[in-house]
């Protein structure tokens, strides 16, 4: 597939004039590879979003909202264009293929998404936590993970809760 052909997934134009594609999970890596071959030299960013509590977001027809979304931002230096791919990832089967084989630079970004959202990336060479300690439990950027607090002692604070 080249960019001359229309992509097989729904596409809208984003606020910054970039292309936003809604690609199915199975076709994700194929779509990225097609874009890479069509001149998108760089994957600038991979991140995840937890849409728990905000299910009614604006999605094109035919795209069923799931709890998680993995968002990949591709950049074409030659065309001076950006394309963003949004992949729906269900909570029950929280994995998606890794982009590592297309863009080795997604390694740290996917580790970050794994660390903070618990989304598995199939084919990632070293899927460990990156920002949190290794024995941390839970994935902090999930919406059902509390913000937490540190007790601040002003004066005459009670003992341990």
């Amino acid at each position: 597939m080249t960019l001359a052909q229309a992509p097989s997934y729904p596409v809208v134009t984003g606020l910054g004039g970039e292309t936003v594609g809604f690609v199915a999970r199975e076709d994700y890596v194929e779509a990225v590879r097609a874009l890479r071959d069509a001149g998108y030299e760089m994957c600038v960013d991979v991140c995840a979003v937890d849409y728990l509590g905000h299910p009614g977001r604006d999605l094109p027809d035919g795209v069923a909202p799931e709890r998680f979304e993995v968002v990949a931002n591709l950049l074409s230096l030659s065309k001076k264009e950006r394309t963003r791919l949004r992949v729906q990832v269900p909570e029950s089967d929280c994995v998606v293929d890794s982009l590592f084989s297309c863009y080795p630079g997604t390694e740290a970004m996917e580790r970050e998404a794994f660390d903070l959202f618990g989304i598995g990336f199939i084919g990632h060479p070293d899927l460990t936590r990156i920002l949190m300690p290794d024995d941390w439990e839970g994935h902090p950027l999930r919406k059902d993970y509390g913000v937490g607090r540190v007790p601040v002692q002003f004066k005459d604070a009670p003992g341990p809760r």
Partner: protein
Amino acid sequence: MTTGTRDTADVGRVGSSGALIAETSERGQEMRRRADTLPDELARETGAVLRLPEGIVLDANSIDIERPSDETMIINMGPQHPSTHGVLRLMLELDGEFVLRTKSVIGYLHTGMEKTAEELTYVQGATNVTRMDYLSPITNELAFSMAVESLLGVTVPERAIWIRMLMSELNRMSSHLVWMATNGMDVGSTSMMIYGLREREMILAFFEKTAGLRMNLNYVRPGGVAADLPDGWEDDVEIICDTIEARTYEYDELLTGQQIFHQRMEGVGSLTAEEALALGLTGPLLRSTGVPWDLRRAMPYLHYDDVEFDVIVGTYGDNFDRYAIRLNEIRESIRIVRQVVDKMPAGDYRTQDAKVTPPPRGRIDASMEALIHHFKLFTEGFRVPAGEVYTAIESPRGEIGMYLVSDNSSKPFRLHVRGPSFVNLQAVPLLMRGGLMSDTVTVISTIDPVMGEVDR
């Protein structure tokens, strides 16, 4: 102290030992012995993975991958090491003086700023993001503000746009000056350290005069900037430009032609354009390989298409190219700043949309409506229409992007920061492969990571 379950209620619990903080482990993130490392991971740590997707296999002769592990040594560099510019921890596998593998372990400065951003209103948001890349706070605020503005559909007044450009370029100069200083310190030129920080001081003093703070300015805000430029700012800026421009030629004398500096920098940590693109590197790292990619030129934002400047590129992608690029970018920024001074229009410094901009202090006593607006803005904040946007601008370290998702409330639903340092740090194994232990210091230095942004 045991590390038990850690759900919300457990965070900060006082344990039996009385310590507030549980011991944590980095074990799985650390570098392991070769026998315990998967082939993919091993290739990654030797900086060779890059070539794999293209079908080029590892050159076994260029570095001895099959070396028995009892002849090599894995050591820690950092997190508390003066040359790691913060709390970067590198694990190096050494064969004598030569680096075979490198793995960076990060997260020591992780404070959950993306999570915090979801708890702060858009009004407070700039205060949060400005603390990420603490050497270039203006670019963080600018990327955040531009993301919010594009979701809001607010137009920013002309003067605010030019003020933003002025401050961004001054900030680029100060950030590169700190880099010149720390890089000088890393290669043993302590004079350069003092000079770099001395010149930066002038810019910080101007920031203090304008925004009230030297760092973490919270100056660029959604809708414009926090305050107008102070009286006589043209003279201040002119003095800054003249002084620093003259001093960049002193740096030339001190470093550029100097033999020892050349030997430390030239040909060390070289990188090709393909490798840089595959790794997603941006900023001076990418430009050092000869790719003329600067978002100010390639995808202009603010009014960068109205000013003249050159995009500085290198040839060999080595440490010296990155040094030369940063030094010359200071000069280009001076050039931009001078044009901005000439072109600065009169007018508002923030949008007059009362739903975004708080009313002036005097109006609050006179107008009930202004009082309500003031109260609403500082308690609830303004609501931003639902949607998602990715805004990227050129920070001194590369492309800083803000991916903002809004659910029509007054707090971001999700704010993801694409930190250039975070991505650029992935070049470390590649740049150090086969190099000398002493060169790790210059390699880290020329990547110029700011750990506040890496760990967020």
